[in-house]
């Protein structure tokens, strides 16, 4: 879908803006709901929940157990483009940016969402939401600018990229822990 000529120029930009908006929307929802859920819990219990989800994701990714995390196992329908050349990609981007509209092939967003839900302040949640959108936009930008099949390359190098990104994520999460305790 992303290789279509419609994804050049301003429609692609609208899609990226939508990714950022979607990430922020999810972060806002999580921090609002989380502000209620976390109220009776001390900080160490809240972070304990984050690390518990991290362990669940890790054992699931390693194939030690089979856990079905909540996931919208559907492709975004083509009808999303009915809004036109820019609003269509914008809406598509928002839906993709929320992380709740389609498949999630990585477990890291579940850990990030739990951390935002239970530990982040509003500014920290917004930063994480913008970051999530940026991460997805980086993929889109790279895919559009690389001359070969970018997703095939990703699949070919996934055994290197998965632990690399997981390590970078874990380091960032530890940094986040230090900023909230």
């Amino acid at each position, binding site marked *: *879908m*992303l290789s279509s000529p419609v994804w050049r120029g301003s429609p692609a930009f609208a899609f990226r803006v939508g990714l950022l908006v979607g*990430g922020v929307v999810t972060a806002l929802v999580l921090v609002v709901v989380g502000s209620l859920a976390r109220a009776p819990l001390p900080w160490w219990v809240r972070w304990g929940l984050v690390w518990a989800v991290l362990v669940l994701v890790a054992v699931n990714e390693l194939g030690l157990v089979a856990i079905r995390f909540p996931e919208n196992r559907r492709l975004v329908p083509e009808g999303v483009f009915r809004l036109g050349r820019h609003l269509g990609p914008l809406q598509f981007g928002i839906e*993709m940016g929320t*992380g709740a509209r*389609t*498949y*999630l*092939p*990585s477990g*890291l*967003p579940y*850990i*990030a969402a739990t*951390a935002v839900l239970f530990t*982040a302040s509003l500014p*920290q*949640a917004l*930063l*994480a*939401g*913008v*970051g*999530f*959108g*940026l*991460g*997805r*936009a*980086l*993929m*889109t*930008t*790279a*895919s559009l*600018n*690389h*001359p070969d099949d*970018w*997703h095939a*390359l*990703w699949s070919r*190098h*996934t055994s*290197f*990229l*998965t632990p*690399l*990104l*997981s*390590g*970078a*994520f874990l*380091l*960032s*999460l*530890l*940094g*986040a822990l230090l*900023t909230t305790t």
Partner: protein
Amino acid sequence: MGKRWHPVWLGVGLAVAAVVGVLWVPWVFVGVTAGFATSGST
């Protein structure tokens, strides 16, 4: 020129940026790494 968008280069660049940026904006990198890790979805 487009080769610089190779996923391995981006992954390494993102990891290096996270190492440097974790001291200032760790929450951004929590989001960026999680978002980029979902790259197989479209």
